């Protein structure tokens, strides 16, 4: 631990200040009654443009992103930069979709995507599938936030799991206490710290290293020496399609995650969402710069910390080690705190979203149909604790690589909810049976493809990445494609074909509980409910 004392002190002090804020947050913006699920889980749904910007930004750009994206650029070069087009494409893509989701959710009191699907397609079974898909996709995401904290701790020379357990116990306690208010308030601090650190990094480090020209030429030199054909500071013929489909597929998936929707639904009105779609790309700019930290690490000759368990380099430590190398100790401490706190905001929102899914779509639907508001909020709070304990156990008991694999799978599986959730906002054409069949087919196709993908760099034979070689499908090419893109295509085709068959066979479809004008209702409309949960199903 020697040599890292200043860093550690700064890190711990900032971490404690922020945790204190988390507990105080319950009193912020004075809720009348935090016992109801809307209050606890959606912060009362009255967040304006700024809070929403911090909340959604803090939710989408996680500690793991800050650690993993530069690690990917460090290892593979241009392909890792997909994170930038991904976050440019996503906002115009969901601009209208999210406004519709906000409206229909506020008219009917929906808290989760599964709530919407249940009402839209009149199918509790489909809603259950959507809820389970969301839960499975979210869990490893929470575990991954711990990987972000762990990378920072490793760079400070701290090993062992106790610090992580303490960090998550604190997180669990204040989420239990304050609900969505805690991450909303902490997000201010987290993002301010991140902006300061990254701006300092992209101005200071290149100047110290000898300019961007030098950084890029060093990176090109490194990739030219490696045997892997796909890496380099530009894309190759083989990975361009992967780049495009990965960026687009990830953009489609982002707002299907229940936790991204939680932040969106907590906003005050449709315009807050639309304004945020133009303002959130400020984070994309930050992310682009963060990605380039991977190249700076190459130019600086940064060596990742070796994982004592596997004896292999842990590329996720590349950014923390780079900071340690470049910055004075106190500022490295600030940077580490930014990453550590950066993990807490999304982890809190994700566990709240997962808890809402369980409470609304499994507990209330199947276990206790007549649950009161207070009961619902209570179950939700408990589940959010269980989810976090589960995430900690994932890290303690499983190889961290497993969480990363699960996260990869998570992207592919959450995409399978697109026909029901995102297309469902636009059309009622699909038959509920068609959607269920498409979901099953897309999921199976996705799993099959991921199973076939090896990772030569760590010797894994299965689930080694998301780049599916087209030659597996009989094409004579070295090109790869994002597995999620094919899985979603399979899903859509099956959903459409089964819909046509069921229609032809005159199989009864579910009732649609929503009506067209509800998709455009805004704040001030008498149908738009704010805090009333009892009015929903």
């Amino acid at each position: 631990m020697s040599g890292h004392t200043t860093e550690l002190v700064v890190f711990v002090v900032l971490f404690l200040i922020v945790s204190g804020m988390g507990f105080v947050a319950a009193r912020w913006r004075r809720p009348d009654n935090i016992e109801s699920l809307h209050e606890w889980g959606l912060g009362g749904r009255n967040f304006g443009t700024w809070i929403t910007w911090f909340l959604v930004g803090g939710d989408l750009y996680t500690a793991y992103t800050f650690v993993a994206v530069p690690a990917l650029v460090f290892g593979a070069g241009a392909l890792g930069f997909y994170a930038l087009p991904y976050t440019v494409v996503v906002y115009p893509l969901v601009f209208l979709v999210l406004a519709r989701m906000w409206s229909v959710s506020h008219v009917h009191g929906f808290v989760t995507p599964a709530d919407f699907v249940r009402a839209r397609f009149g199918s509790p079974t489909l809603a259950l599938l959507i809820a389970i898909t969301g839960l499975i996709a979210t869990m490893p995401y929470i575990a991954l936030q711990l990987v972000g904290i762990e990378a920072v701790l490793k760079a400070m020379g701290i090993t062992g799991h106790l610090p992580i357990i303490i960090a998550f116990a604190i997180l669990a306690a204040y989420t239990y206490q304050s609900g969505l208010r805690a991450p909303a308030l902490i997000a201010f601090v987290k993002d301010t710290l991140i902006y300061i650190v990254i701006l300092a990094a992209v101005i200071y480090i290149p100047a110290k290293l000898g300019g961007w020209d030098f950084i890029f030429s060093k990176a090109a030199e490194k990739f030219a020496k490696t045997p892997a054909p796909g890496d380099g500071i530009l894309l190759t013929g083989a990975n361009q399609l992967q780049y495009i489909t990965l960026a687009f597929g990830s953009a489609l998936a982002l707002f299907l995650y229940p936790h991204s929707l939680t932040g969106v639904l907590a906003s005050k009105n449709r315009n807050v969402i639309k304004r945020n779609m133009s303002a959130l790309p400020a984070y994309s700019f930050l992310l682009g710069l963060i990605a380039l930290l991977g190249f700076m690490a190459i130019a600086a000759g940064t060596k990742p910390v070796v994982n004592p368990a596997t004896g292999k380099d842990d590329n996720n430590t590349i950014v923390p080690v780079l900071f340690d190398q470049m910055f004075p100790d106190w500022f490295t401490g600030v940077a580490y705190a930014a990453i550590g706190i950066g993990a807490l905001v999304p982890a809190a929102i994700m566990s709240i979203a997962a808890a809402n899914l369980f409470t609304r779509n499994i507990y209330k639907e199947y276990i206790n149909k007549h649950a009161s508001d207070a009961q619902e909020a209570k179950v939700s709070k408990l589940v959010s604790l269980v989810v976090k304990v589960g995430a900690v156990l994932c890290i303690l008991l499983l190889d961290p690589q497993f969480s990363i694999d699960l996260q990869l799978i998570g992207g592919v599986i959450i995409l399978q909810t697109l026909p029901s959730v995102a297309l469902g906002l636009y059309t009622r054409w699909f038959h509920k049976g068609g959607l269920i069949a498409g979901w099953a087919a897309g999921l199976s196709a996705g799993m099959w493809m991921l199973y076939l993908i090896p990772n030569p760099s760590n010797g894994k034979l299965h689930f080694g990445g998301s780049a599916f070689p087209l030659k597996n499908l009989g094409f004579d090419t070295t090109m790869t494609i994002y597995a999620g893109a094919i899985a979603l295509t399979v899903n859509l085709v099956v959903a459409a074909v089964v819909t046509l068959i069921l229609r032809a066979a005159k199989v009864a479809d579910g009732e649609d509980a929503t009506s067209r004008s509800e998709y455009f209702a805004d704040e001030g409309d008498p149908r738009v409910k704010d805090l009333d949960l009892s009015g929903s199903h």
Partner: protein
Amino acid sequence: MVTPESGQKRTDRSPWNWLLFVPIVLPLLTFLFNADEPRLAGFPLFYWLQLAFILVGVTCTTIVYRMTK
């Protein structure tokens, strides 16, 4: 009567929405930017042009927001 701004809209259709396709499609056309030259401030084209697409995205969504609100 409720005023139109307070949410009595019946549709979100508008010709302005087509503008949203620009920032959705542009960043996915790799042939536009998969090159080293010309460099800008030491950044290869691949990196600076994609960063510049963020501005395109912000401009388009802002225009659509202002024209349709």
